[in-house]
């Protein structure tokens, strides 16, 4: 396990949030990023659900990695993922029924997230439990961060509110809570992050080396 010595846990977490941010960088798992982000509350709930599934899947796969035959690993991964998604799904239905009514389908569809399967395949099946947990934490936090930013802007502009509390008195831009607004928000934020990336990160790395 020579890889583990070199990579610190902090780097693992930061990697998921900044360098390989699921939504802004890899452009994976986009469906819920637009579907549930019309209010901050739903966005954060969805982000937490994904964070939980990602961490639990990574830990389970990592514990099982020596017992899984490489040939049938993908079906096994899918089984583990859908098991944890079912757990999340039923928990949400029991404890947050109102939110579940609006976003139940998208919770169930976490199972088809490319990013979760990818981390299981690329990281958890090759590493120990603790690094896998931190990797899952990083990826999940990155997703949560992206959803929070998107839903913050959409709710602020579309309803003039944050977390259900009205802030702006002016007439809101209704388009931002419509489906079309979701695409605009993600597109513009992606462009913004690209721009920031070029301006600051590129400069910082070139001056370091």
């Amino acid at each position, binding site marked *: 396990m020579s890889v583990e010595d070199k990579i610190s846990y902090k780097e693992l977490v930061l990697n998921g949030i900044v360098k390989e941010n699921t939504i802004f960088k890899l*452009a994976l798992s986009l*469906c819920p990023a637009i*579907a549930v982000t019309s209010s901050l509350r739903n966005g954060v709930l969805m982000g937490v659900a994904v964070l939980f599934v990602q961490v639990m899947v990574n830990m389970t796969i990592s514990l099982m990695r020596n017992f899984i035959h490489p040939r049938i690993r993908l079906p096994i991964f899918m089984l583990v993922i859908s098991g944890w998604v079912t757990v999340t799904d039923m928990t949400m239905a029991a404890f947050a029924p109102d939110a579940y009514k609006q976003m139940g389908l998208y919770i169930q569809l976490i199972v088809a997230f490319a990013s979760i399967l990818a981390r299981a395949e690329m990281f958890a099946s090759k590493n120990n439990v603790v690094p896998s947990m931190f990797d899952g934490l990083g990826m999940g936090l990155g997703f949560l961060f992206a959803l929070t930013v998107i839903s913050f802007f959409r709710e602020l502009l579309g309803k003039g509110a944050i977390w259900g509390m009205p802030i702006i008195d002016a007439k809101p831009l209704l388009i931002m809570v419509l489906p079309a607004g*979701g695409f605009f928000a993600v597109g*513009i934020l*992606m462009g913004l992050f690209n721009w920031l990336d*070029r301006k600051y990160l590129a400069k910082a790395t070139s001056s370091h080396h």
Partner: protein
Amino acid sequence: MQTDFVKLFELIVSASLINNFVFTRFLGLCIFFGVSKKMETAVGMSITFTSVMMISAGISWFIYNYVMIPLDITFLKIIIFIGVVATFVQASDTIMRKVSPDLYYKLGIYLALISTNCIILAVPLINAGEKYTFLESIAFGFGSGIGFALALIIMASIRERLELADVPEPFRGLPIAFVVTGLIALAFTGFSGLITI
């Protein structure tokens, strides 16, 4: 019989235009942005998608109503549906390679991409949630497939032109594709209220 047919037709129109999977339900976006760069791939994907969707909707309906409900295991629907879809896709991949290599050469790679797509999984889940009959399930699968095909082909034809446009540098590629999709979605909101079921 007459009303049945009307209801099926309404279901197809509503699934393809009003509740279009891409523009109002936001499903299948990864594939939508992935394969809409070229018209040829978009058409191939659309054909494969619609047929897989219809057949898997039918199979899942049988399993849901004749296996899962009698055994009272509907809470396992996520696990079972993903198994059914993945098995079916794998099986049709193998059969197509043996029976018609030509078709496999053209459409095989799309088939491999489909297996973990969220729309394919969403159709059986929605069918089960809404308690559709067998014919309605098939119609819903067909309508969703047509809707997805429509979205892909519109997007592909726009993106082919977008390549020549002068886009600000940070927005090249995906970000501008998102903004364009937003504009199409805005146009699709015009369909809302066309039919109420």
